[in-house]
Structures are given as C-alpha cells and as structure tokens.
C-alpha cells in the first residue's frame, strides 16, 4: 500500500492498544484469567462443564477422587483429586448439592502435578465430583460423601 496510508494506519493506534502493549491493563499483567462467574453459578455437573467450555463429561478411571465416606463436620471436608494422565490440563471439584456446585477449578501448568487437595464446605450429604479436562474432553470421577453436620450455616 502507499506509504502515506501505512503511516496513517500506524498513527490510528488507540491509546488502549498502546496500554495493552505496555502491560498497564491488569488483565495482561497478571497470570490470572478472568473469573468464570458462569461456571461458579452452575447448578449441575453438565452446566458447570459447559460453562468451563466443554461438552457433557464422561466417567473415567483416569480421574482419582479421594474423599471421606462420612464427614463428621460439613464445614471442613478434605477432598483430593488427581490424575496421572499427561493430557490433563485442568481439574475441577464439584459438590452436587451445594447452592454453588463448583467449589474450585485448578489449572495444571506444565511441570505441576495434576494433584490437588483442599477443604470444602458441604451443606448436606452429596455426591462429590472431580472433573478433569483431558485434551479436549472432560472426564470425571464421583463419590458420595455422607455429612453428619451440614456446613453452610443453614
């Protein structure tokens, strides 16, 4: 194209564009991605996985879920989820009967094990799901946890 046209294009760069390039806008500076509000509002396993960007998940022995059979205190239930499959890039934990079913989503950066443990609140006895993003697919494991004292303040 004509040099004059090219120069005019260059001077049309917006301030926003320049700021993005300079890393002055928080999104580019932080390693954190935008909070996936839709996923955290999902009520069912399928809703959550859809909000995470996947299709209906399938049961898989590649995902290991470690939960107590009976939780004495619903306020603090230790859950562990892991997978040795190298294609896993994300692991999510869901408490089916909680008002907010999705408890956590862990990314698996290269070099990090797909193995996470945390404590969750369970309002009542419920199925707990560990969902893993394996390549393009979403797969899951599920176990039931019985809760003797509910943990959401209700």
């Amino acid at each position: 194209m004509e040099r004059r046209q090219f120069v005019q294009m260059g001077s049309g760069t917006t301030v926003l564009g320049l700021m993005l390039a300079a890393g002055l806008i928080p999104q580019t500076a932080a390693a954190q991605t935008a909070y996936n509000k839709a996923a955290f509002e999902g009520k069912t396993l399928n809703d959550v996985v859809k909000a995470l960007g996947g299709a209906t998940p399938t049961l898989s022995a590649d995902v290991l879920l470690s939960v107590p059979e009976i939780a004495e205190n619903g306020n603090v239930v230790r859950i562990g989820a892991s997978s040795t499959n190298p294609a896993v890039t994300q692991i999510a934990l869901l408490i089916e009967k909680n008002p907010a079913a999705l408890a956590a989503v862990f990314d698996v950066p290269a070099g990090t094990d797909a193995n996470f443990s945390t404590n969750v609140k369970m309002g009542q006895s419920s199925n707990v799901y560990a969902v893993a993003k394996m390549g393009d697919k979403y797969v899951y494991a599920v176990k039931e946890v019985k809760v003797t004292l509910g943990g959401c303040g209700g």
Partner: protein
Amino acid sequence: MAEPMRIRAQAQGDKITVRVLMSHEMETGQRRGADGKAVPAHFIQSVSATYAGKTVMNAQWGPSISKNPFVQFSFKGGKAGDKVEVNWIDNKGDKRTDEAVIT
C-alpha cells in the same frame, strides 16, 4: 486476611510439595447473621503460586471452599533454598501475597 498465610514447601528430589493454610472468612453469602439478614459473600476467588517467575499453581475458587482455606499442590523442577510465592485475591478485591523457603 490480616494474618499471613502459613506455607510449607518441602523438596523430595526436585519435586516440591506445597501446603498452604490461608486466613479468610470464605463467607458464602448464604448465612444469616444475628440480625436475620444474609451476611454478604466474601471469599477468595483467585489463588496462584509462582516459583522462579513461573506460575506453578493457578486456581479459581468459589464460596464452597472452607473458611481458612487449605490447599496442597506439587510441582517439579524446584530445589530447597529457593522461594515459592503464593497469592490470593478475593471477591472484594482484597489480596495477599506471602512466600516461603523450600526446605
């Protein structure tokens, strides 16, 4: 929020296991206070950890995570004597960063 995170990072060869205990209410927004009104939601939404400038853990949390959250994760390629940094940001924009030396 005021209290520092308790971070324990241990090396087994080049595999580093990190356990973190954070201080945070993790209020769901469902609970009713003494006045009968729902206590507003106040919970950590975003957690991450870095080692040698690289992100080794990155998670998004919801209000189902317990009060004073615990998390454990592990990564390869670390060594004793180096530092791991853990950060969190909550739904009100409050944040905290703490670090620990790998033992």
